[in-house]
Structure formats: C-alpha cells, structure tokens
C-alpha cells in the first residue's frame, strides 16, 4: 500500500513539475532593475502589457538608479532604469553591447516649506541657491522679500532639509542649482549624493516631508509626484525666461519639449533650466537603459514590442499616476531609436 501511494505521489509531482516548467517556458521572462522614482508606473505598465501579451513577463526591481546601472553592467538583468543618464565611462564598461537610453516619463522636483501663515511662495534661482548654500539664513532676507512682494515673512532662521540617501531627486535638484549658480557648481556640484553645505538629512521623500512638517521655518525639496499625491503645498520657481512657474504636468512636459530639437541623438540630456516661458525649470527625464544587442531573438522582440507600446498606449497611464507624459517630438525620435536594437 505504502509503495503504491509513494509511486502515485511521485507521478503526481512529476506532472506538477512538468506543468510548472511548461508555464515558465511559455512566458518569456525579462528582468529589469533600477530607479525607484518611476517604479509605480513601470509596475503598472508591465502589468498592463502582460494582459495584452500573455507570453511576455517583465519583472522589475526598484533598487535605485545606481544599483540598476550596476546590475546592467554585471549582466544580471536584461535592462536597467535610471533617473541619471549613464556616463561615457559607464557605457564603455559594458563591452558586449552599447546601452541605449529611452526616456519613459518626466518628473519634476519642487521646493516645499513650512512657514506659519504662508501658503504660496516664489523662488528665484539665486534665492534657492543662496538658501541651500547657507548664505541666505533668514526668511526675512531681502532676496526672499523681493521674490514675494506683499507676503509677510517671519524674521526666523531657515532650516534646510535635504535627502539623506543618494537619489535621482537630489541629482536633479543639484544639477539645477549647478546650472543657475556658479558657486554651487564649484563648491558642491551635481550628484545623487553631495556634500551639503547646510541642513538636516531626511531619509526618503517621506523623511524629508516628515522633517519639514516637524520643523517650523524649514525648506526642502521633493518629487512633484510625491507632493501631488500627498497634497503638499509647494512653491513656484522662476524659469530662464524670468517667469515664476509652478510645476504641473504641462509645465514639466513643456521643459522636455523645449529641448526636443536640440536633444542629442542618444537622449542623454539634462532638461533642467529649460528655455521657454511655460517651462518648469527643475524637470528631468527618467530613462530605461536597454542594450542594443540581444543574444536571444525572442527576448529582443519582446522588448521592442514593449518599447513601442510604452511610447504610444503606455503614455496614457502617466497622468493618472501623477507622472508627466513625454512630448510628441521626443516620442517620434525614440521610435526611430528602437530600430537600433538588434
């Protein structure tokens, strides 16, 4: 009796194993890793895409931009994702193929603050740089008064709050400050982690927001998507045309459109401090990093299919999830780049 039971068990498990293996074979599995900022829309895209193509399964791990680039370099994932474009040096490290950058959506970074009795503030680039360099130390400073005529600002010390961990958000923020302030560029520079002249570090967007809420007279920066979803008030920033612009989907997309014609062929471009009256100056692309050569033809076809879908139907999901969609001019250019994947 016991022997029979065991044999039956073996057979059943054999069937099960074959069944599971069969299901795995049927779906082409593609693995990606990288930036956390676009993770929400990426998960949504991969889910929706799976509904349309039952045979393609895309997995995404949001480990951070740096980790995405690292894993792509080591060949442990099929594609990476980053809020910061790869450097020439990083691209050269991958010898098997050349990495292509595909912008997917846009994000903005906004100044947010906690000043009693003040809801809407304007910031000029010089003021922002001055505050984050530790040169403007009081809310009643003349520069802030000049940006905000008629607003009653307290005679209190400013507490600066920044992200404590390396992040794409910090990169965009410091990249912008480097473009508008030569002093910031020489003293601090643009990077995902920098040596901050002043301020407290909060961990993650929630840490920065929590610290700002807890600290009267503080100022920090968060992603537009985070501010929008959590209904956090944020300030307007003066763009290169001299207009104070508040970040929203349109003004962020406008920043990308302003660069559409002058964009390098490989899409590795910073779109901070964009020209144009309607453009919000602290905006960025976020990129998918896709190798131009795949050994496996089905894998290549699956990725190409996904990229085409992402640039057309996929873009419609962006606003619902608080991301700014790509301008049409950029989509057209990217569709041409897809042909480079072999």
């Amino acid at each position: 009796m016991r022997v029979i039971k065991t044999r039956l068990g073996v057979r059943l498990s054999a069937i099960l194993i074959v069944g599971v293996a069969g299901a795995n074979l049927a779906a082409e599995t593609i693995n990606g890793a990288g930036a956390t900022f676009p993770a929400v829309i990426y998960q949504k895209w991969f889910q929706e895409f799976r509904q349309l193509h039952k045979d393609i399964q895309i997995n995404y791990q949001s480990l951070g931009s740096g980790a995405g680039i690292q894993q792509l370099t080591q060949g442990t994932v099929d594609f990476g994702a980053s809020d910061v474009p790869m450097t020439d040096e990083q691209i050269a490290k991958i010898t098997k193929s050349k990495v292509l950058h595909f912008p997917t959506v846009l994000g903005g970074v906004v100044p947010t603050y906690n000043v009693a009795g003040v809801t809407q503030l304007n910031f000029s680039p010089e003021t922002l740089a001055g505050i984050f360099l530790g040169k403007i130390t009081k809310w009643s400073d003349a520069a802030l008064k000049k940006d905000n005529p008629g607003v009653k600002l307290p005679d209190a010390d400013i507490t600066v709050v920044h992200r404590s961990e390396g992040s794409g958000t910090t990169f965009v923020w410091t990249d912008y400050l480097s473009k508008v302030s030569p002093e910031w560029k020489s003293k601090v520079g643009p990077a995902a982690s920098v040596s901050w002249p002043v301020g407290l570090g909060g961990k993650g967007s929630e840490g920065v927001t929590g610290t700002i809420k807890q600290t009267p007279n503080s100022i920090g920066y968060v992603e537009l998507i985070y501010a929008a979803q959590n209904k956090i008030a944020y300030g307007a920033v003066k763009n290169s045309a001299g207009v104070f612009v508040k970040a929203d989907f349109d003004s962020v997309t406008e920043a990308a459109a302003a660069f559409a014609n002058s964009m390098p062929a490989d899409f590795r471009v910073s779109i901070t401090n964009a020209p144009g009256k309607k453009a919000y100056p602290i905006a960025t692309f976020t990129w998918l990093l896709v190798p131009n050569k795949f050994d496996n033809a089905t894998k290549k076809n699956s990725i190409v299919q996904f990229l085409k879908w992402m640039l057309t139907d996929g873009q419609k999901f962006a606003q619902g999830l608080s991301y700014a969609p790509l301008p049409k001019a950029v989509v057209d250019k990217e569709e041409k780049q897809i042909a480079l994947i072999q």
Partner: protein
Amino acid sequence: MAAPQRSAARKFVKRLQDGDQAAHLITLIFAASVFLVTVFLIYELWIHSSASRAKFGLAFLFAKSWDPVAEQFGALPFIYGTVLTSVLALIISVPLGVGAAIFLSELAPPRLSNTCTFLVELLAAVPSVIYGLLAIFTLVPLMRQYVEPFLKKTLGFLPLFTGPAYGFGYLTAGLILAVMTFPFIISISRESLLAVPREQREAALALGATKWESTWQVVVPFARLGIIGSIFLALARALGETMAVTMVIGNDPSIHASLLAPGYTIAAIIANEFNEATGNLHPAALVELGLVLFLITMILNAAAQLLIVATTKKGSIQD
C-alpha cells in the same frame, strides 16, 4: 527502488541517534560554519574596499570630509557619531535597565514581574523602523519644544548643549537607542538575577543582612556576568542600529561638540548611500566604513571579555 533507500536512510538515522560520532561531526560543522561566515565576511569587506584603502590608506580613519562629488572620503564623523550615540544610549539605558531588572526579579510580586517582563519582551520585538517613526512624530517635537530649550537654558554654558534646537541630532538618536536597547538589558539581567541560587540569598539573610543588602552585595555581584553580557548585547545593537537612528540623527556628516547638533552614524550612511553609489571609490569607501564598524564591534567585544576576566578574578577571592 524505494525499499533499499529507505533502509539506508533508517540506518543513517539510527547511527545518528545512538552515535556520538555523528552528533560530534554535525555540531562541529555548525560551529565551523559560524567561523567561516565571519572569515568570509571580513574577506569580502577587505576585497571590496580595496579601491578606497589604496587611495586613502590609514588617513581614511582620521579624515573629516565626506564629499561624493569630489570623491573625498573620511570616516571620522561617522565613527564619532556611532560611538557617541551608542555611549549616550548606554548611559541612559544601563541604570534604567539594571534597576528595573533588580526590581522585577527581587522585589516585585511574581504576577507583576511576569506581566512587566512580557511587556518588555514585546518591546524588544518591535521593528526599528517603527521606533524611528515614533521618534520623528513624538520624540523630535518634544525634544525641540521642551527638552532642548530647557537644556540650553540650564546647562547652556557647557559646549555640549549649544546651537539651535532642531530636535534632530545626537541626543535624540541616543534617546531612541536607549529605548531600543533597554529591553535587552532588563530581560537578560532579570534572567541571570533569577538564576542566582536561593541559598546565596538565604545565607546573606541568615547572617543578618537586610533584603537590600542581600540583593546589592550578594545577588547582583553573583549575576554580574549575565548583567555585563546584557550590556554588551545592548551596545552591539546600538552600534549597528540603522533605520531608527538615520530617521532622527539629522544625517549631517560633520563633527559637532554639541549633543543637540545633527550628526551621522556608520550604519546610517551605508544604508543611505550604497544604493546610489556610483563609480569605483564611493562604494569602496562605504564598504570600508563597514569594515571600520566591524573593527569597532570587535574591539568592544574584546574589551567586554577583558572586563569579564578582570571581574571574575576579583570575585573569586571572595569565594
């Protein structure tokens, strides 16, 4: 097919059951694996920090700047922050924890003692991120509005209590670490106090000692190994704690004399920057910080061993 396999398996089990040999071998493997994991850990930390060790050498330990853009890395602010917050935590939690353990094991009625111990052990099981969140939303405003202004007013002549009161900083981090470590001290100290043989207490009482004299002069010295052990376990937890600390310390990589100022710890910066560290030097410097933390832990453990040896010798004369 199945029959011979099963009998072989049964034989193996039998040998294991009544064979000291097998038990010896298996436990040896377990013990060796602990050793191997430690060696492997040091090896990995050593290899992956090579770029940073080659560039900075020993100066890494004494350099004060941490600038990922200019690729200048120094460990001193982090060593300072780690040691300072852990020491602050122990200054607060050791008297509290040992005192509470003495009360729970010697003086409290058993029912109260058991309830309290259960609650304390629950505290030890709370994830650190929860402590961190609690600290941000309750401890930080309390510190900023009441405690820090009070300290500045009364003890402000000391450099320890100067500068703006952010609520975020060394002192708050030390406090939250004290809350997190003291369940360990209470729980283990209480166990070792309870393990003191009844005869010891009875002998002391018979000699005419009061309850307190018997507790303080006989029971506590008898249980000192367990108590010291609990303190070092607490210290180890404080040194390595990451989430709760990074949420309240302010994450500022510089050295301040004031306890109210923001700082940084080794575990916090590794957790914060490793994900997005690019290039060669930045990740290597972070790994080297891990190596430094490992060294600090080893030095403190060695100190603990020495302390235990020293107190045991002194104690044995009394026996």
